[in-house]
């Protein structure tokens, strides 16, 4: 082990001093609020004025019988599942496509990643104009194609608000996964696929039996990220609805915000926050389980 000298020269003072700022900041401004969500969720009253009263599990009882909560929860699940699967397929497909071409790889990669880099505020406003029922370019396009009956008030109708939100969400995040998969694909030695070719494997067989298994670790990370990304969705929905209480595409975090900062129900909002945390952890757990089982099969 080349770090053998560390045992002799381990400078305890420096180690403590160097770690302290990071650990302190992280504990106070990250871990503590996270634990405090749980604590506040058993209270009611004004979170900032020490006038909290212990209400036990009342917030949770109310949560479980709150239709709006289950609705936004269901929206989040739909976003996780639909956006998750669609993003991964789109990104993997695009990344594979990128490896098949010679010219323009860099150009496309740079372009595809840009929505990731753009601010959520700009994305939301830009797309809400594209979806505008009257002068939005989407309806304009449909009218130009003489498809008048397919025009919608995209963000105002129950059947379109969530799908459209999911679509923009995919548009926003897909670039990251393209870059991720692309980097993973470049790792695969070229002779693997050549060997497969020589053995007479088709393109699909090669993809299924060589590329995918070799991408498994990246696939797992990507899936965890996409789940977190999709549970964490807030700014897009908040701004799509101009900050109003959203019902057709409302999500856990917008409902939490509404309860806390519009209605002043801080304890109830924290109960929603706790449920969001559980959702994140549960989804990540399911993903990891899935990949572990898969790994055994291989």
């Amino acid at each position: 082990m080349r770090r053998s000298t560390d045992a002799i020269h381990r400078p305890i003072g420096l180690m403590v001093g160097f770690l302290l700022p990071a650990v302190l900041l992280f504990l106070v401004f990250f871990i503590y609020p996270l634990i405090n969500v749980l604590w506040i969720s058993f209270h009611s009253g004004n979170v900032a004025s020490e006038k909290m009263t212990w209400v036990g599990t009342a917030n949770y009882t109310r949560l479980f019988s709150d239709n709006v909560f289950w609705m936004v929860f269901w929206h989040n699940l739909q976003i996780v599942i639909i956006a998750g699967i669609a993003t991964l397929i789109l990104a993997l497909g695009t990344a594979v496509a990128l490896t098949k071409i010679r010219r323009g790889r860099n150009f496309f990669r740079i372009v595809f990643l840009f929505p990731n880099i753009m601010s959520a505020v700009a994305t939301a406003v830009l797309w809400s104009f594209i979806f505008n029922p009257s002068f939005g370019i989407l309806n304009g396009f449909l009218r130009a194609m003489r498809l008048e009956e397919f025009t919608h008030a995209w963000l105002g109708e129950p059947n379109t608000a969530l799908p459209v939100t999911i679509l923009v969400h995919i548009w926003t995040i897909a670039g990251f996964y393209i870059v991720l998969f692309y980097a993973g694909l470049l790792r695969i030695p070229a002779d693997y696929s050549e060997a497969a070719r020589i053995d007479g494997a088709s393109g699909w067989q090669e993809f299924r039996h060589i590329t995918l298994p070799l991408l498994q670790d990246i696939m797992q990370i990507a899936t965890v990220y996409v789940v977190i990304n999709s549970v964490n969705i807030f700014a897009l929905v908040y701004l799509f609805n101009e900050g109003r209480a959203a019902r057709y595409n409302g999500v856990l975090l917008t409902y939490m915000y509404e309860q806390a900062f519009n209605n002043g129900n801080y304890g109830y909002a924290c109960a929603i926050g706790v449920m969001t945390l559980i959702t994140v952890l549960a989804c990540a757990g399911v993903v990891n389980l899935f990949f572990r089982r898969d790994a055994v099969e291989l």
Partner: protein
Amino acid sequence: MISGLMGHSIYRKIAAAAAVVISMLPCALAQTKNVEVQAFRGGYGLDFFETAAKEFNAAHPDIKVSVDGNPRVWDVLVPRFAAGTPPDLAWPGWGMNLRPIIMEGQVLPWDKYLDQPAYGNPGKTWRETFKPDLLKAGVFNGKTYTLPFNIDCYGWWYDETLFNKHGWKPPQTYEEFLVLGKKIQAQNIAPLTFTGRYPIYLLNGVYYPWVISDGGIDVYKKMINLEPGAWKHPSFLKAARCVMDLKKERYFQGGCIGMNHTESQMELLVHRAAMIPCGSWIQAEMSNLVPENFKMTFLKTPSFKDGAGDPTALFVGADGKGWTLPVKGKNPDAAAEYYRYVSSPEKAALFIEQKGTMTAIITEREPKLPPHLVKPFEAVKNARVTWLNNVGDWYTPLETEIETAVVDMYNEVITPQEFVERCEVKAQEFRKSLGKDRLQWD
């Protein structure tokens, strides 16, 4: 660097600390009282209040009023009230859930100030300069918690030039509207559009007027008082059915459910829609875009020909929930003094002329009315019955439920029958959650 980080706030703190020190000195030195105003930045902007603050500061060297605002000012105010650091004076805006904050004792009643002499008129109390009906809207357990400034009446708006060109008459009754709508449709124009993303326009401008027209004002009052079974009155169902009938006949502009204020109002300006329910702020919001020959004209929401309600009934209410004095503001007296100045009859008349809307203040001189305000003034004068959306003003969570329900109905997720049933259930659930805090309006 530190001063850069803290910006002005550190100076303010130092100033405040200095002020404390100075005030402890035996010789009384003049100290500046800072008054922070947080106000809803809507179609009228805030320049009127900013200018008034400058004038006020010039006249009162010991007070410094600064006006700040935001189109979602309640997103700022709710946390600041919660944190115990509210501004000195707030105009909380329509989205504010003010009632719980008043219940917590965070708002100072205006009454002790209202009993003082009016600004520039020692013969009158300040209270007497407000129209009594409108003052009443801010009274809660016998105390006046919010003071109105500008007021609006809801109705429909149209372009008189367009109507004259086609020989259309503004419909006085629902029945006339049905007939006229067909003629308008024949010109490839939608008879009515509305701000669908903010369903309050559908409620205040179309639905509630028809409930009141069909059943009379008492039916509506039972509803705002959350009486059990109020929503079961047939007028609520009938008005809901009328809305849906019109939708089926394509009287509403397609897609308007997805439009915000200026977007839907723009539809009126470009003549893709003939009429729009809105308050009297419409001209101010669209001012730079209204074409020259466009004559913005008001029309009271058409009522049923044989309805039981008074046909002159009109929504007249304070804009943005009225002005509020937080208890924890640092200088409530100075803040009240500033508002007393802003709401003086002369200022009110100026506001009418500059901003093109009405105020809750009895003006001493006849203001020069902008053309679009002539008819709303008449309508207010002629109204034997006026009403308010008290649920929207005081019960924000219930209002959210009613608004989402009416949008669900409009989108045909639920039927009119299910709509009134859902509202009934939500109203009673909400009443239960209120307990003793329920308000009563007469």
